[in-house]
């Protein structure tokens, strides 16, 4: 037998919700036979679990990646050299990756790479974390 725990439900008034998103969510919820309360709760649960709040590391990584993109034309002139980008700026140019890596270890967050191809966004497939758990009867 499954243990069913009914969550306590609360009435809330939320200001500033995007009208178009709300309309589409309402239509999707109706199609799936889900109440808006359950749909919003599910969305908020996902938001809390997966986090939208960027921490300092994420911010710095973005800053460094943006620097590499914005300055790629300048960096291209150093093709074959290793660069270290940290704190949103170029920290050094090196003749070898190993040398650059030793230097970059003084930073908490840094991009360290040999200048070759233009930075790209790549996607990786990741399967679900499927573990079947058998509920043991007491």
């Amino acid at each position, binding site marked *: 037998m499954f243990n069913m725990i009914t969550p306590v439900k609360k009435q809330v008034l939320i200001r500033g919700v995007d009208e178009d998103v709300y309309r589409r969510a309402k239509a999707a919820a109706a199609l799936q036979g889900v109440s808006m309360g359950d749909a919003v709760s599910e969305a908020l649960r996902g938001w809390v679990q997966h986090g939208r709040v960027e921490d300092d*590391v994420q911010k710095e990584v973005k800053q*460094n*990646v943006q620097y590499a993109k914005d300055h790629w034309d300048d960096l291209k002139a150093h093709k074959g050299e290793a660069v270290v980008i*940290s704190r949103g700026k170029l920290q050094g140019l090196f003749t070898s990756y190993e040398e650059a890596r030793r230097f970059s270890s003084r930073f908490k967050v840094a*991009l360290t790479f040999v200048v070759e191809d233009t930075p790209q966004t790549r*996607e990786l497939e*990741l399967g679900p974390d499927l573990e079947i758990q058998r509920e043991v009867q007491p």
Partner: protein
Amino acid sequence: MDQTWKYSAKFSPSAPVIVLELAAMQLECVIDTGFSGGLLVPLSTFESLGLLSGLVQDEYLAVMPDSRRVPLYTAREVVTAGSSRVPTLVHAAPTLDRRLVGRAFLQSFVTTLDGPREVVALSSQTRK
């Protein structure tokens, strides 16, 4: 020569794992052919190995089964599996607390899963 590892009994049924060495740390990783990357480790491991200071310039996103895209921190490292040393992309994200070895790593090897004996064998073989 083959490197072999016993399946991990931490999973039920037991799961094929290989023990890799990354920056002098031993990591037991589940073989996951559904993962197209090299190595996925928890962010705490990634951070403690100092990999945040060796990130690559490309941005990597993990496409989840529900189509969500999760940004990954990615560093290029040399990973040791038995007697083989393989340059591999190592990935981590705050919301992915898994240790997986994926297809990008496995393509360097012939991997055999022997279910009845619960043994994983990895052997290097040059491509024809």
